[in-house]
C-alpha cells in the first residue's frame, strides 16, 4: 500500500512578528483542522494510501489519529520526541527510510527546511502555517492531501509535478573555527549582533545575502531580488544582493520584507549567480539568517554562500490535480464508486 508521511510542526507560527508585523496566529487547533483536511484529501483517490504521522507532545498527532477517516489507516511513528526541530528531521529521515511516496508538511520555511535536510528525493507537499513563508504554499489542506495521494499512489508521476527547489549553503570562517548553515530560499546577512527573537525585524539591519529564488510575490530578501532580477524557484542558480543605506544609494527598491512591512532598501548590487558559484560577505559583527530567521552569530567572519540545485522536490499542487484529473484519477468506475448516500 502506498504511504504518505505527515509532519505538523507544533512550534511554527508564534514568533515576534506577532508584535512587529502583520503576521497572523495559527494555533494548534487550526493546524489540527488543516491536518484533518489533509487526511480527508487522501480519500479522493480510489487506491487510498495509509498515513504515518510525526509524533509530538502537544497532542496534535493524537487528535489527528482520533479524527482520521475510517478509510485511512493512520499511525504515529515510534520515535523519541524532544519537542525541538530535531523531531522534524528525525521524522523526515524515518519517512525516507520507510519509502513513503510523499510527505505533507504543515509549517513554515523553517519546518520545510528541516524536512528537506533529511527527506532526500521524496516528493514534499509544503503547506504554509508559519509566519512569513516563501517556500510552502498557502493551499487548502484537503487539496494538498489530494495532491499527496495522487503522487504517493503513482496516479500522477512525481516527475511530472515536482519542481526541485534550490538551497543555499553558508560557510563561515571565524576566529573560532568554521560554522555552517543551510537555507532554502534565502540566506541573509544582518548587522544585528544577536539571534535574539530570531526574526529579521528591521529593514535597516539587512545587509543583503543570497537567494535561490527571486519573485516579487515572495517575502523578504527573495522579494527584493525579485523586484530586480526574477528567478523561478526551480531555475538553477540564484541572486546575490548587497544592500546599502537607501538615502545614499542611486538605486533603491520597494519590496515586501515581512507581512505588513513594505520598505525601501538601497541596492548596492543585485546580480545573478550560477549554481555552486561562491559569493562572499565579510561580517565584522552580525548574524547570518536562514529564510527570514537569524541563526548564526558571527564576529570577524568571512561567509561564503553557494546556491545548490539539490533542494527538496516540491509538489506543484495545482499541476498534480490537473494531471490527475486528466488521467481520470477522480472518475471512478461503477465498481469502485462509493455507495450512494441515503436520502
Amino acid at each position, binding site marked *: 500500500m502506498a504511504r504518505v508521511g505527515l509532519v505538523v510542526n507544533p512550534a511554527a507560527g508564534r*514568533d515576534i512578528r506577532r*508584535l*512587529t508585523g502583520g503576521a497572523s496566529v495559527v494555533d494548534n487547533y487550526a493546524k489540527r483542522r488543516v491536518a484533518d483536511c489533509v487526511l480527508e484529501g487522501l480519500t479522493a483517490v480510489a487506491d487510498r494510501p495509509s498515513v504515518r504521522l510525526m509524533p509530538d507532545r502537544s497532542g496534535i498527532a493524537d487528535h489527528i489519529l482520533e479524527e482520521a477517516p475510517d478509510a485511512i489507516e493512520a499511525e504515529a511513528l515510534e520515535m523519541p520526541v524532544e519537542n525541538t526541530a530535531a523531531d522534524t528531521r528525525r521524522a523526515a529521515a524515518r519517512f525516507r527510510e520507510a519509502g513513503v511516496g510523499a510527505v505533507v508538511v504543515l509549517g513554515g520555511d523553517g519546518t520545510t527546511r528541516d524536512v528537506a535536510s533529511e527527506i532526500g528525493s521524496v516528493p514534499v507537499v509544503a503547506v504554509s502555517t508559519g509566519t512569513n513563508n516563501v517556500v510552502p504554499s498557502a493551499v487548502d489542506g484537503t487539496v494538498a492531501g489530494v495532491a499527496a495521494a495522487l503522487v504517493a499512489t503513482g496516479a500522477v508521476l512525481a516527475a511530472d509535478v515536482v519542481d526541485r527547489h534550490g538551497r543555499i549553503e553558508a560557510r563561515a570562517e571565524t576566529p573560532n573555527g568554521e560554522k555552517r548553515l543551510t537555507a532554502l530560499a534565502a540566506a541573509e546577512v544582518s548587522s544585528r549582533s*544577536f*539571534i535574539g527573537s530570531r526574526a529579521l525585524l528591521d529593514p535597516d539591519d539587512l545587509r543583503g545575502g543570497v537567494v535561490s529564488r527571486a519573485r516579487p510575490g515572495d517575502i523578504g530578501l527573495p522579494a527584493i531580488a525579485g523586484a530586480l532580477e526574477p528567478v523561478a524557484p526551480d531555475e538553477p542558480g540564484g541572486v546575490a544582493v548587497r544592500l546599502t543605506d537607501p538615502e545614499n544609494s542611486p538605486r533603491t527598491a520597494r519590496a515586501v520584507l515581512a507581512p505588513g512591512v513594505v520598505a525601501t532598501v538601497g541596492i548596492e548590487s543585485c546580480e545573478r549567480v550560477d549554481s555552486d558559484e561562491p559569493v562572499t560577505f565579510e561580517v565584522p559583527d552580525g548574524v547570518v539568517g536562514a529564510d527570514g530567521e537569524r541563526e548564526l552569530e558571527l564576529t570577524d567572519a568571512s561567509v561564503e554562500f553557494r546556491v545548490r540545485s539539490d533542494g527538496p522536490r516540491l509538489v506543484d499542487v495545482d499541476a498534480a490535480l490537473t494531471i490527475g484529473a486528466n488521467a481520470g484519477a477522480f472518475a471512478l468506475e461503477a465498481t469502485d464508486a462509493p455507495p450512494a448516500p441515503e436520502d
Partner: protein
Amino acid sequence: MGGLDIETEEGRREALRRMLTIRAFDSEAGDRFADGEIPGFVHLYIGEEAVGVGTCASLEDEDYIASTHRGHGHCIAKGLDPKYMMAELYGKAEGYCNGKGGSMHIADVDAGMLGANGIVGAGPPLATGAALSIDYQDRDQVAVGFLGDGAVAQGQVHEAMNLAATWDLPAIFVIENNHYGEGTPVEEQHNVDNLSDTAQAYDIPGLTVDGMDVTAVAEAVGEARARARAGDGPSLIEAETYRYRGHYEGDEEPYRDEDEIERWKARDPIDSFKERLIDRGELTAEEFDELEHEIEAEIEAAVEYAQSAEPPAPHEAYEDMFAETPPEIERFATAARTDGGERIEDSRSTSDRSRSEGGERR
C-alpha cells in the same frame, strides 16, 4: 539601576553580572535554608535568570514589575540590593520589608518592584493596576506582570489581562514557562500548546521566545514596551525556561528525571551567554572567573550582613502593614503589647534607608 542596553558591550557585561548575581544569591539562599538559617520557604530562580534579566534589560528605571513567589531573580534584575534582600530572607529589620515579609514578599516600590507574591497569579492584577495608574496620570512608564505557567489558568490572571487589553493599558505580561506548575507538567495543565496562544482571547499579540537566551527575552520585551508606550495596549510574552532546582527546597521531584534536567542545563543561560561574549572577544575566561568571584564575595558579605543584623523588635510587629493603621488593628496591637511601651509612629520605609553600592536610589 534598572534598564541596561544589551546592544552595548557594557550593557551585556551588566546583564551577565546580574544573571550571575541571581545564581549566586539563590545558591547561597538554598544552602542557608537547608542549614535552617532562613525561616519560611524559598523558591529558587536558578536556570531562569535570562527571563528576569532580559525583561528588566528592556525596561526603564521608572517602570514597574510585579513578581511571583519565585521572585529573587526579578528583584536583582530590577536592581535591588542583595544585601537587603538577604536580610529580608533572614527576617531582619534591615530587610526590604523590615524582616516581616521574607522571600515571598520582597518589595521596593521606589525601585519599581511592586512585590514578590505568595499568591499564584497575583502579579498580573498588580501590573494592570499599576498600568492603569500610569495611563491615568499620563506617565511614560510600563508595568510588567510576571507569572508562571501554572498561573495562566488562574481567574485573576484572566481578569487582569482582559482589563488591560480592553483599556489598552501599558502592561506587559511575561509568562515564565518553566514547564511545571509545582509537580504537574505544563501539558497536563493547559489545553493550548503554547501558552502565548491565550493572547488571542484578549485580542492582543502573544509570542513565545527562548527564555534561556537573554537577548531573545530583551528583544521581545523591548518591542512590547514600544507597543505599550505607543498606546497600543498590552502584550503577552511566553518565555520558555526551566528551573534546575525543585519547586521548593526539599522537593523530591518525582515528576522529572536527571536526563531532562541535563538537557536544559546544556542550554544554560549564563554559560551560553558567556560563550557568546567570549566568541565576540568582549570577555575572557579569566575575566569571567574574576566576575564570578567578585559576585560570590558580594553574596557572602550579604549573608554575613544578614546574619549579624537585628530582627525587628516585637513592639514593631503591627507596623508597616497599612498605609494608615485601621483603628481595630491599632486597638488589637495595643492590647497585645506586653511591654507597656508607646507605639512608634513612623515605621521605617525602604526609601529612608541608604543603599549599598550598586543599589543606589534615584
